[in-house]
């Protein structure tokens, strides 16, 4: 091997000055030996990279080090590749911080408004104990103690939003049952009575034609409105075999609420608030003992949605869209990818059905874990 080939190695080492690159490429273009040299050097480099025996210290040896220093043994040694992968994700997220921060703060405001419309008794119990399994919040180093089972209410109370009709003679639920009549843009929640059938058409969410129920003066001009409100139910299956049943301390679990802004015919953006479960399976050490935790807690997830509808997939009876969302909840990051269909049912309101894949990344004792699930989301989109 001649000295003139040294630039090949410098190039592969990333230490060849840019000004010499043209010299290298000229050499490779004219010299068969140089090309062979390049192939050999690349083969050696690739072989070294694949030397997993050298790069992965045995766990026994790792444990010996930690024991000798009086430390608890780590659960596993993070592979270099996974560190760089998460570092890359982290860097990307940092770059997006200002956009995400704006989105999250808007989502929090939206969610706060929505929470005022929802029953409040369990709103803060996003992680709860189910069965007798110990529940942990992976972000916290100190494990939470098991909590007592919540008392089961004997009677289930359903709540509906009822809005006063413009025609006072109409036999609506509100007028019949002497419940609070709503005439403001901020509906109150009331208890239903037995004779609900007569007023079924005026009840939300039984009748999705909410625009008929709201006073006209509070409705925006439909022609100009690009904002819509989506309410969906979620039916998911975790990728793990679920051994712990989902926590049930959260009302309206497995439902999602979104505010969507139609930026153009093809693109839409929005904010989403979901109440959902993620089945978590992770490891951690307590007093030198390795534990594997499994839990199925409730989460409140806030995310930023981007939606793209393909022009050629728009039909008279609906359209197909793809959607990506990124956000987080109290234990980690959540990302979702999905595809869905929007089917108009009345004026500008539509039914929606979609298939989503969701991933939650979280960490416990410096180690990252992920939970994923996939399933259906179905609901309505109401144009404001």
């Amino acid at each position, binding site marked *: 091997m001649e000295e003139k080939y040294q630039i090949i190695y410098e190039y592969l080492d990333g230490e060849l000055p840019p000004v010499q690159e043209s010299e290298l490429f000229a050499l490779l273009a004219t010299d068969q030996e140089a090309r062979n040299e390049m192939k050999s050097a690349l083969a050696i480099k690739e*072989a*070294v990279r694949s030397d997993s025996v050298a790069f992965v*210290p045995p766990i026994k040896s790792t444990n010996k080090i930690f024991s000798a220093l009086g430390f608890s043994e780590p659960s596993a040694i993070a592979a270099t590749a996974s560190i760089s992968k998460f570092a890359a994700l982290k860097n990307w997220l940092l770059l997006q911080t200002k956009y995400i921060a704006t989105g999250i703060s808007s989502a929090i405001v939206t969610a706060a408004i929505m929470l005022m419309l929802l029953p409040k008794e369990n709103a803060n119990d996003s992680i709860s104990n189910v069965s007798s399994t110990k529940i942990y919040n992976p972000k916290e180093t100190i494990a939470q103690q098991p909590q007592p089972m919540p008392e089961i209410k004997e009677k289930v109370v359903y709540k509906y939003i009822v809005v006063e009709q413009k025609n006072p003679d109409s036999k609506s639920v509100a007028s019949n049952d002497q419940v609070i009549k709503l005439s403001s843009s901020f509906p109150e929640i009331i208890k239903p009575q037995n004779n609900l059938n007569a007023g079924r058409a005026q009840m939300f969410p039984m009748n999705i034609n909410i625009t008929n129920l709201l006073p006209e003066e509070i409705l925006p001009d439909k022609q100009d409105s690009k904002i819509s409100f989506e309410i969906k139910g979620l039916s998911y299956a975790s990728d793990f075999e679920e051994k712990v049943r989902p926590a049930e301390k959260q009302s309206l679990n497995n439902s999602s609420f979104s505010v969507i802004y139609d930026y153009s015919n093809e693109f839409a953006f929005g904010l989403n608030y979901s109440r959902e479960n993620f089945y978590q399976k992770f490891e951690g050490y307590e007093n030198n003992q390795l534990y594997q935790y499994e839990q199925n807690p409730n989460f409140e997830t806030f995310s930023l949605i981007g939606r793209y509808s393909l022009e050629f997939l728009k039909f008279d009876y609906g359209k197909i869209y793809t959607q990506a969302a990124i956000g987080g909840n109290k234990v980690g990051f959540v990302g979702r990818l999905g595809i869905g269909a929007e089917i108009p049912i009345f004026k500008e309101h539509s039914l929606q059905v979609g298939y989503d894949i969701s991933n939650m990344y979280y960490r416990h004792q410096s180690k990252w874990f992920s939970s994923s699930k996939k399933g259906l989301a179905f609901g309505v989109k109401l144009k404001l």
Partner: protein
Amino acid sequence: MAKYYDEYSDTELYKMLCEDRRTAEQAFTEIFNRYSSRIYAYCRRFLGDREEALDAFQETFIRFHQSASKEREMTNLPGFLLTIARNLCLNYKRDRKIGVPVEEARNLFYQDNYESKELLDLITRALDLLEDEYREVFILKEYAGMQYSEIAEILNISPANAKTRAFRAKQKIKEILSPYLKDLTRN
């Protein structure tokens, strides 16, 4: 706002080693996660012998932890770890019994049916045939991913010298592997 340990710099983590036990443990774990594979790769490929490499690897991290001092300003933590590892590996080599002479080993190498072996096996065996000064530069460059300037600092030589040694190491490995590589470049 509290940061995760993987968000701290090497210098910050090193300082934390002198703090309370819990902080020190978390900081050490993070340092270990960052650099253990490089250190192990260096020991494993420089010494060749697995048991010796494991001993050197363990001792490196134990000595590193014992050396933690608030007074020391740690500017190149991987370099510091590799320097400890290198000194230990050199001690192991010095204490070793004299093995098979290089020429004899080279002949043994060629007696094997090289075609049936993976390139990586051949490279690791070729590394054993290199003189220490070339082998360690090759390992620091290819396994520990260090720049020539960093290698120069660890070995106390000039960057130009480090570059020359790395090139010669690769030349020697290529010479040893030439029958295999000829087949490779023909394909």
